[in-house]
């Protein structure tokens, strides 16, 4: 009898946990963008500078996995400036804000494009950048970046 009660408890526990998962799934968009509590338009701002390094890495990973959910959001992040050159067209340089995980072995970043006329930072400079998350196409591939970004 005890065995069946324990079994029922285990099932109920897991069913309740599964239910939590489903609710969260529906709230995913609201949840990820709602942590700037001082701003009325909270749903539109994703401020990564307020998070711990573990959280920043995880949230940037979320942005990379589901970029379409972040289109149009204002993203603010702090990290190191990285440069990439287009191998076909060397005049094109791409700038990214890179963050590392807590073990410092993995890093991820988001490309940013500053407003016309603004000067870009040097490689490996510590930067805080804010811009609107958007997509663009190049050579048939969709890329994501922070457009009209500004350095803070």
């Amino acid at each position: 009898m005890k065995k069946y009660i324990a079994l029922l408890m285990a099932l109920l526990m897991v069913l309740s946990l599964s239910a939590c998962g489903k609710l969260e799934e529906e709230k995913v968009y609201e949840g990820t963008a709602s942590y700037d509590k001082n701003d009325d338009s909270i749903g539109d701002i994703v401020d990564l500078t307020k998070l711990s390094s573990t959280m920043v890495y995880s949230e940037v990973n979320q942005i990379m996995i589901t970029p379409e959910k972040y289109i149009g959001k204002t993203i603010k992040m702090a990290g190191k400036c990285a440069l990439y050159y287009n191998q076909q067209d060397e005049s094109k340089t791409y700038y990214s804000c890179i963050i590392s995980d807590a073990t410092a072995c993995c890093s991820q970043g988001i490309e940013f494009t500053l407003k016309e006329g603004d000067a870009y930072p040097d490689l490996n400079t510590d930067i805080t950048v804010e811009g609107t998350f958007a997509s663009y196409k190049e050579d048939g591939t969709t890329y994501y970046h922070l457009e009209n970004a500004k350095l803070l």
Partner: protein
Amino acid sequence: MNFFVKIINDLQTYFEFPFVRYALIVGILISLCSSLLGVTLVLKRFSFIGDGLSHVAFGAMAIASVLKLTNNMPLILIITVLCAILLLRSGSRRKIKGDAAVAMISVGALAMGYLMLNVLNPSSNLTGDVCSTLFGSTSILTLTKTNVYICIVLSVLMLLFFVFFYNKIFAVTFDENFALATGTKANLYNLLIAVVVAVIIVLAMNLVGSLLISALVIFPALSAMRVFKSFKSVTICSAIFSVVCTTLGLLISIVAGTPVGSTIVAVDIVGFLGFYVAGLIKGGKKA
């Protein structure tokens, strides 16, 4: 006081993120499962098998990366379960026995996995891939929904196995020969335990990484054994210890920005020391 208020506010903010809640759910389930079987493994002196199988899982993950599989868990599960059966298959006909077989498969899988990642890996971030797999990094906070559901289903199966076969596991753990003599199919249960261990290892890789998995299996059981003596009380205490330590470690790593896996293991070590002292005090009082 302000410090604690800030931590609570930070945690409230972080729990708005779905991936933090997923991590907590999966973390609790994995720690619960690993601690339940940890008692059996420690008592049967199979502690090192967890370590060996975790290296096998690393090798399997390398194969999945090379094959560019989106969902690598099924492949890792199959390979790890097969190796677990191979390692725990009892019988006197085996030419390479016990710890030598574990060491051989463990080191071989680790070396082949790293070699494959180096030579054939399509990703340019080799260091990141290896480090993330070995030490967990933030894997638990970057789980996909599919991974979360697989973890939940497998954890339920593990719990059902433990609840249904508690008496058989108890018998096989303490006296295999007696269990055989009383008609219990000890070899079959050993095989089932091997399969379950392999599944837990694969699940736990997301939580603490393949190098730190043994901590989840060993520390809760050893800590509980410092204070309690019966199989049942040790198992219950081990489960509570593991869930509390994992939750604490996960929350600390999220707030302080430390690596998830090693923070959980650090909390396990502190917990073990606490139980060790408690055991000494309890023993002293009895004397």
